[in-house]
């Protein structure tokens, strides 16, 4: 069970640890700066700072040592034949940061939609050109919570480091089995309500908000999509809508149980334009039967006049699936020790939460 939670917010990074039988903030870093991604491998912790005016920077801490700025994904010079690219060849935000399962490898998913790999723990990065320069990327349109498409999920197969699946906001699920040298869009079975009828099922038109994978059964994936919740049993090639989700099928975040392929959690909200909790009640929906049914969990969560929204990276579970954490746009933070049956909130009022993550998960 992980005893460390990292919370990246609009104004700093907060580390929670166990204290007096509960959870408390034990360390803070980058106060005042937006943190868009965090990763704790157990030996090293990484934090991506989205500094706005000054660009995105990546910092690393070895064990419990000092933070220092390291290399950051950087686009190469934009060639003449790409002058008409609708999206900038410059790093906007690091939106996903994952271990590569091989040595010091890391993967970074970004806005405007570049995928980068480091093989030296983040000191240097290279753009995965095959994904960035493929003609289909010109179809990656949409606002992705900002102004650009973005790679929000990078799923590396736990036993096959060469096998990577990336989720792109408003542009489907892309797979590579050769460490990023070649790519195919693979998601069948989703639908986009806002496209013309003949194009609703087009894989590249799918607005996947977030993907999660069962580590022990990597063929099982869950997706919170703009139009609903979906589940795959073949590593993302085919998807079935999970229609039992309630009280709403809309949301941003999803977490997969690390060992039980039938269990997952989402945080439902009123769909589309409103994006607030249903009836002013913050709830978590959990399935334990592969999506056939859901428990709506609310014990310890605000049930009256609560307008917290949970962003796609702000829900996390640890390596055992007992502890969960989620943080909200209103700075709320709730932790469960019992897979979501009950929640409690440590004494704190945080800035808006972008990302939560357990150490080692």
């Amino acid at each position, binding site marked *: 069970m992980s005893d460390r939670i990292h919370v990246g917010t609009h104004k700093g990074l907060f580390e929670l640890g166990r204290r007096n039988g509960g959870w408390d903030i034990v360390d803070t870093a980058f106060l005042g700066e937006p943190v868009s991604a965090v990763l704790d491998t157990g030996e090293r912790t990484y934090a991506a700072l989205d500094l706005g*005016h000054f660009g995105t920077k990546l910092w690393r801490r070895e064990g419990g040592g000092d933070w220092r700025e390291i290399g950051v994904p950087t*686009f*190469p010079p934009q060639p003449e034949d790409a002058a008409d690219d609708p999206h900038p*060849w410059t790093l906007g935000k690091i939106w996903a940061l994952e271990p590569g399962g091989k040595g010091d490898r890391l993967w970074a998913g970004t806005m405007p939609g570049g995928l980068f790999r480091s093989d030296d723990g983040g000191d240097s990065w290279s753009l995965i050109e095959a994904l960035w320069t493929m003609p289909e990327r010109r179809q990656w349109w949409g606002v992705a919570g900002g102004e650009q498409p973005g790679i929000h999920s990078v799923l590396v197969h736990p036993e096959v480091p060469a096998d990577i699946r990336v989720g792109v906001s408003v542009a489907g699920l892309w797979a590579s089995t050769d460490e990023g040298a070649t790519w195919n869009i693979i998601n069948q079975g989703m639908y986009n309500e806002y496209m013309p009828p003949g194009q609703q099922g087009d894989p590249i038109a799918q607005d996947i908000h977030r993907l999660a994978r069962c580590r022990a059964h990597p063929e099982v994936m869950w997706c919170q999509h703009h139009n609903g919740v979906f589940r795959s049993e073949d590593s993302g090639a085919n998807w079935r809508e999970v229609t039992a989700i309630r009280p709403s099928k809309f949301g941003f975040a999803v977490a997969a149980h690390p060992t039980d392929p039938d269990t997952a959690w989402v945080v439902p909200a009123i769909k589309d334009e409103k994006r607030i909790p249903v009836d002013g009640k913050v709830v978590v929906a959990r399935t334990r039967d592969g999506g056939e049914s859901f428990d709506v969990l609310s014990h310890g969560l605000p049930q009256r006049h609560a307008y917290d929204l949970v962003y796609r990276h702000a829900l996390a579970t640890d390596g055992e699936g007992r502890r969960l954490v989620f943080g909200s746009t209103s700075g709320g933070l709730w932790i469960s020790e019992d897979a979501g049956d009950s929640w409690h909130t440590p004494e704190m009022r945080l800035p808006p939460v972008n990302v939560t993550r357990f150490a080692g998960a």
Partner: protein
Amino acid sequence: MATIVFTRALERFLPVPTVEVEGETLDAALAAVFTAQPGLRSYILDDQGALRRHINIFINDRPVRDRIRLSDPLGPDDEVYVIQALTGG
């Protein structure tokens, strides 16, 4: 030698003392600064070497014209101010 003054807002990330540098263009002058302090470049310029969107540069009291290639000429006594746009939240 032109004088380059940086916004104090950068000081929380790295040292940005006022410097005097040679350079007939803004690009050349900044290149000299970044040679001495490579880590500063990515705070001012984007991946394509253009001025970041919310950074502005004034040469004396005139805003820079060429934000892409920074080709604005510099005179020997020019004062260059690197500032950020103010946005809230």
